[in-house]
């Protein structure tokens, strides 16, 4: 049951990364690929009906973690205190910038919110990527199972660690560039005209950078967290994840070459899912690794709630998950096809 919930939480985080990932990518890219107000609104219309629901995967994933592994949530959130609030403020600014922009027609008003949207969309992937880096590198959990670290110390990956060091900044940049490429794939699929053309132009260099950064991050992980690297070598699931993300990467390049935009988007989604699945399989069962003493690790086994709670939770979670799949199928169907810039007042 603990293993099941470990994977439920991991899958929800992975879905969040894929779904909100293209919102971040669109937010980063829109300043460059969409120049006029009509083009900006075309980008917003592409993510408009979806972004709010996409963000819920983060909240629901957090809720699932609270339900199954409250100790991990309590320890991680209080340990990464300042970074958590930076994430919160960026999420707030991102949501407000999308919703408030359309309510006033003024040029300066819109330019301001476009910039806020882009800055928040850049900072969020870096912070979330750094969070993944922290989980892989480990944190100074003490015997009580808590820790608290500053935003940065000396940028080395050794104790005393900070949230940002060379390794976690590297994973942050990897996630930033990946989600930018993911956003380019999404917009190439969902838009047409100049926006699509500019996305296609940016896509190949972006995904080339992803490949380089992925290789660098993999080598760095072998050095910073050898235990995780060994876990990867020994886990069949991690190998499966690796196959998926390598196939995804190949599909991205193939898709862009062959002008099959949906294939490229599915490929970039598979790359993100596979990479996260491989990472989760490599750290299992550790959820937060102690840099001080391996006995103080928080694992899916020692940090989970009692079996009764996990079982009850699984019943409602399964029902809820099926309903949610229905919502998303409905949304993608209702808003299928290319988005074109809508008349003022009818969309974003």
């Amino acid at each position, binding site marked *: 049951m603990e293993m099941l919930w470990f994977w439920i939480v991991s899958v929800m985080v992975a879905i969040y990364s894929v779904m909100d990932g293209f919102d971040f990518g669109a937010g980063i890219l829109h300043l460059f690929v969409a120049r006029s107000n009509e083009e900006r609104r075309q980008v917003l219309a592409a993510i408009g009906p979806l972004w709010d629901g996409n963000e819920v995967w983060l909240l629901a994933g957090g*809720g699932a973690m609270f339900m199954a592994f409250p100790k991990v949530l309590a320890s*991680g959130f209080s340990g990464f205190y300042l970074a958590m609030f930076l994430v919160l403020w960026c999420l707030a600014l991102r949501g407000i910038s999308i919703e408030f922009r359309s309510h006033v027609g003024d040029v300066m008003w819109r330019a301001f919110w476009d910039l806020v949207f882009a800055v928040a969309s850049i900072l969020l992937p870096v912070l979330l990527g750094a969070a993944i880096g922290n989980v892989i590198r480990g944190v100074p959990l003490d015997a009580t199972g808590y820790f608290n670290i500053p935003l940065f110390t000396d940028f080395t990956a050794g104790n005393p660690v900070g949230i940002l060091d060379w390794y976690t900044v590297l994973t942050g940049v990897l996630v930033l560039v990946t989600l930018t490429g993911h956003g380019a794939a999404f917009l190439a699929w969902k838009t047409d005209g100049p926006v699509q053309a500019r996305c296609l132009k940016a896509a190949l260099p972006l995904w080339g950078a992803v490949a380089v950064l992925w290789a660098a991050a993999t080598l760095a992980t072998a050095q910073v967290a050898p235990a995780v690297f060994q876990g990867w070598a020994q886990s069949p699931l991690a190998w499966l994840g690796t196959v998926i993300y390598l196939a995804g990467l190949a599909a991205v390049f193939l898709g862009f070459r062959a002008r099959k935009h949906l294939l490229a988007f599915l490929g970039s989604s598979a790359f993100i899912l596979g990479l996260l699945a491989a990472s989760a399989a490599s750290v299992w069962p550790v959820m937060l690794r102690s840099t001080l003493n391996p006995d103080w690790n928080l694992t899916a086994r020692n940090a989970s709630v009692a079996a*009764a709670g996990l079982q009850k*939770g699984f019943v409602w979670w399964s029902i809820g998950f099926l309903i949610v799949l229905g919502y998303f199928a409905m949304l993608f169907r209702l808003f299928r096809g290319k988005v074109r810039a809508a008349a003022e007042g009818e969309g974003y």
Partner: protein
Amino acid sequence: MGDPLFWHRLQFGFTATFHYIFPQLTMGLAFLIAVFKGLGLRQGNERFNDAARFWIRILGISFAVGVVTGIPLEFQFGTDWARFSTYSGGVIGQTLGMEGMFAFFLESSFLGLLVWGEKRFGPRLHFLAAVALFAGSWLSGYFIVATDAFMQHPVGYALAANGTLQLASFWGFVLNPWAIIQYLHTMMGAVVTGSFVVAAVGAYWVLRGIHPGPAALNLKAGVLAGLVASLLVAMPTGDLQGKLVARHQPLTLAAMEGRFQSGPRAGMNVIGQPNVAAHRLDNPIRLPGVLSFIAYGSFSADVKGLDAFPQDQWPTSIEPLYYSFHIMVGLGTLFIALMGLSALLLHKALQPQRWLLWILMLAFPFPFIANTAGWMTTELGRQPWLLYGLMRTSEGSSQLVHGGETVFTLLGFMGLYLVLGLLFLMLIGREVAHGPVPSHNEH
């Protein structure tokens, strides 16, 4: 102020109080919009759809601010109240997890359809989206109130060997009687807010002499819904809530009323200032026997005062608790009077009185104050406990988070929320000044 606990409490209190301005409006409006859309579909009358379209624009803004200010509350369970989350997550994780799966996805999936989909998807799907948003926001309210109810009156749990709380009875916990009563009371409070806002906008347009059709409809709908909700928030829901507190938290009741001495025929204080150091209420104006009646259904019933309990268990902030409760009850009484009078006069006279319209227009902030005061009563009344009888507030905070971090993030929230609040008022003001958007001229 040197104690980190003070800052944790202030941050949660501030962010929660600011947040709740928006959901009470959203939940109230979501109900009224669903009613408007239902009437529009049934009667085929465009004026209901016109009214709904205007309020959906207001709802969209309010919902967005509600979402971004709500997320920090969920996060703060982990960041600021780590020991509480570890201790109680085995139970309250259930409702918080369900809120995400059953309420948030429902709301977020249909909000876009509601705000942008009227023309594209037709009246039936648009009505469905209105109902879905109503259901989602009211479901979300239930999960949060059920979580709070567990903190007020813990049921359905067992203490595990590792010293944490674990789920013993799922339905016992989810259907906590405290949750059901508090939920009905809270939701009626939200409808009061929504209907006062609708009535205020209607009154403003009538006074200005603009948009005569929508103005009259909003005025009528707001006053009617406002009267019904103002009555229901007092009787039976508020009354039942009071009896629940009297039964399970007699100490809280004594502090809410500023009652320092025990005894029979307890009076209800209309006004007065609690002097905690001297253990008495200064300048009291009292309705004799009323508190006994409200709490136990008999004018002569014995009601315990603060003196019946050890002082280290008294709520830590008796003065604000006392005032919150009295502001809530006082305003609630005035709401019934105002809406009752308005309904009567609007019904009798075809041309409504201008002085009354002025009052209705200016009354809209007060339900926000009453709802806030209600939550203050609930949460201050729970002190010194975080989980009533199980965990004190001082035992629940994150120990390793230092004051330098909490003050930093609190100041950040204050700045961000000041800007958000001003932008919200500006955008709502623009919408009200702009008026309703007819369907044939959508732009």
